[in-house]
């Protein structure tokens, strides 16, 4: 089966820096990081290789290339001297899978209770996948990134592999 005819494919993008931020002043922190922090839950801003997703009223997930991790931590430490904030490096806690293809919504529907067809491209959400908490972002109409705790990844991957085989056989 070639990739061009596959209903969906799963790949693992290059590892990234992930920082879980709990803050009360997103505008000030955003200015310090050169990122406009969205305040609507689920909204996401992308600036170059960095992105920030609003997960809750005071919670954001910042992602950046792996090599920018140290600079990011230093910038946040500097902001933390004047503003109360909690920044936790969760880069290694989680793993991101890229799911794409014409049947990507069917693939996600095997485990996710949300109506993901309604999730706008460029936004994201924290939700469930078969009892496991995940963060989904919609990168394109037929491409999602699924971020999950590393220890749950084998379970999810096994489920997704079964679903891929079912989709490929037309079930």
């Amino acid at each position, binding site marked *: 089966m070639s990739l061009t005819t596959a209903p969906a494919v799963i790949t693992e993008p290059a590892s990234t820096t992930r920082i879980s931020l709990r803050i009360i002043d997103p505008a000030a922190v955003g200015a310090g990081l050169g990122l406009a922090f969205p305040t609507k839950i*689920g909204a996401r801003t992308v600036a170059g290789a960095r992105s920030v997703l609003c997960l*809750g*009223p005071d919670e954001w997930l910042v992602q950046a290339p792996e090599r920018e991790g140290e600079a990011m931590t230093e910038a946040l430490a500097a902001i933390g001297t004047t503003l109360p904030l909690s920044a936790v490096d969760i880069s290694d806690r989680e793993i991101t899978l890229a799911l794409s293809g014409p049947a990507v919504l069917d693939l996600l529907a095997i485990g996710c209770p949300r109506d993901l067809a309604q999730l706008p491209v460029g936004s994201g959400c*924290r939700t469930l996948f078969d009892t496991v908490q995940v963060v989904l972002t919609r990168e394109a109409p037929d491409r999602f990134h699924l971020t999950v705790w590393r220890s749950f990844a084998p379970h999810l991957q096994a489920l997704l592999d079964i679903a891929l085989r079912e989709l490929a056989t037309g079930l």
Partner: protein
Amino acid sequence: MLLIRCPYCEQDLPELEFAYAGEAHIARPQDPSSVSDEEWRDFLFIRSNPRGVHVERWRHVNGCARFFNAARETVSDRFLATYKAGEPRPDIASLSGEAR
């Protein structure tokens, strides 16, 4: 699937993302050592458990992670309203009228 409106996410989302967290608007006594045993028992254990509209806490644990309050009709399992933590309870009479 039962959909619950999260007042923080401002969306109707699947029940699986939420966790129930007991009756709402139960304030812990400011000074526990000054209340009687009966008052302390009531605070800890005695709940209204109505047949009808129940005001209760929920947490959008697999989402924005916030606690909020909801008024739910316990017979039909219909959610009449959800509102943010800290906001006053809605007018139950008008809500239960709506439920009929």
